[in-house]
């Protein structure tokens, strides 16, 4: 993950979702649980979870400046990449491991998911849906790599290296025998119930290791 990726994520939380992902994650996360946020930026979400849910919060972030700001606001954040961020923790160290807007930026998404569910009982994964109709139309009309509000980068400097859709994630969850406990599909801050793979801009999944 590059620092550019980190700044992309930051824009995602603030501009695309506003507080709606906080609301969803707040709905999911049980009070006084243990939470690890991978790619936590300046720790806004973790601080909010500490204040509103009294969770025990940890974060991992690659950007030095963001780690500094997170620590200065009182959140315990480790400067490192996501792989480093996970490897050291013992099994089951967390109730939730959050990966917000970063799965499509990781080199080995399957490995990351497995590690998340090794160190955490549940994983919360939020990602932009590459199956959204705007993305499909953009590519169809321009005949070039799609650029939309959620995928604003030129192909050569996009942090996104693994594009996925709502359906793709569900298929991967099936292959990995993960139990999808909850799924939230969003367009702006609205929930989408019909044709989520076509209409959702962002999806948030709560998954756990299914019966093996």
């Amino acid at each position, binding site marked *: 993950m590059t620092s550019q990726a980190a700044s992309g994520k930051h824009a995602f939380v603030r501009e695309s979702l506003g507080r709606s992902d906080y609301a969803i994650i707040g709905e999911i996360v049980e009070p006084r649980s243990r939470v690890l946020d991978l790619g936590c930026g300046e720790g806004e979400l973790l601080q909010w979870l500490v204040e509103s849910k009294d969770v025990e919060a*940890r974060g991992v972030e690659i950007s030095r400046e963001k780690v500094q700001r997170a620590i200065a606001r009182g959140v315990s954040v480790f*400067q490192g990449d996501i792989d480093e961020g996970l490897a050291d923790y013992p099994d089951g*160290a967390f109730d939730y491991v959050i990966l917000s807007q970063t799965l499509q930026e990781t080199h080995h998404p399957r490995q990351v998911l497995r590690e998340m569910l090794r160190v955490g009982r549940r994983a919360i994964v939020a990602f932009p849906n590459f199956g959204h109709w705007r993305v499909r139309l953009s590519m169809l009309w321009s005949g070039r790599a799609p650029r939309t509000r959620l995928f604003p980068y030129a192909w050569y400097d996009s942090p996104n290296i693994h594009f996925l859709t709502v359906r793709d994630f569900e298929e991967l969850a099936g292959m990995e025998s993960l139990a999808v406990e909850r799924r939230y599909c969003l367009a702006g801050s609205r929930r989408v119930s019909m044709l989520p793979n076509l209409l959702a801009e962002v999806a948030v999944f709560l998954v756990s290791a299914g019966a093996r």
Partner: protein
Amino acid sequence: MIVEANSVRFDSLALDSGATLAPVDVAYETYGSLNAAKSNAILVLHAFSGDAHAAGISHETGKQGWWDNMIGPGKAFDTNHYFVICSNVLGGCRGTTGPSSINPATGCPYAMSFPVITISDMVRLQKMLIDWFGIPRLLAVTGGSMGGMQALEWAVAFPDRVVAAIPVATTTRHSAQQIAFNEVGRQAIMADPDWNEGNYYGKQPPGRGLSVARMIGHITYMSDDSMREKFGRRLRGKEAFGFGFDVDFEVESYLRYRGSQFVNRFDANSYLYITKAMDYFDLTNGQGSLASALARVKARFLVISFSSDWLYPTYQSQEIVRALRARNCDVGYVELESNYGHDSFLVDVGEQTELVRGFLANTFEKAA
């Protein structure tokens, strides 16, 4: 802020080596005031050549403390909120009992009859001081370099007495390279005929050896970049080479100056004993993994390293953080960008200040 040195005497201290020191004096300074609950105390631990004068202007010498840019009203360790304590380490030469102190059994300085000491001996003596203050739990222990080793030792040895630890630019044990530099320093001192097996008190001290040791130290505290920036190849007070072995380059002049200054304020035998203590330090005590050594730790941590520090490189701080995470401890970690090498923790304090201030405020709030 004018500050005064204080001192307290304890009856005895049992050492790791099996020897006992009796009595033991501890020189200390304090800044700010202890609150009624005694919950706002921070113990600042000095590096190898530091002393108890961490902040303010010394009443006796008129000199500024070694971490004055970090400790004081409105600074990182804000004395408007916290009570900051700093003491000279065991084995030191700035008021706490060390090899230059008088051995009550002989009436002469200990010199090389002073027992070999360890970082954990230093920390046990500091704990006596904290007990003497009646402080049940320190809000934080912090220090850079050897001070960071003591902060780690505090968190491991007295887990119930430390709320938070901020080890800066430090390690859980010296690498071969770190031991090697210390050994060169020791050999420089012992090769000076004036050292005289350590018996130079009241005579000519081994100034040449100690000064060379300090010159080596200064090289390891800086970085290639910071030396290039500070000195480059500039000549000192001349337009052309002198074709001799007097000072030609600025960097030679600087090192000679720092070396000679050091001789005036530091005892050569203290140099030997304290560097040995650093080399012996191993948080695992040579047994088991670092993670198992940290099993009893309860403190939360803020670990800081510096990008250009090649004496205590970032990987050593990351080892601490890895082991703490393996124990699921509360730890924040960042490598700050700085060109000043190991000296960064003393001179480049802007970003450190922001980090430490937020971390302490949050720790104090949680602990209350």
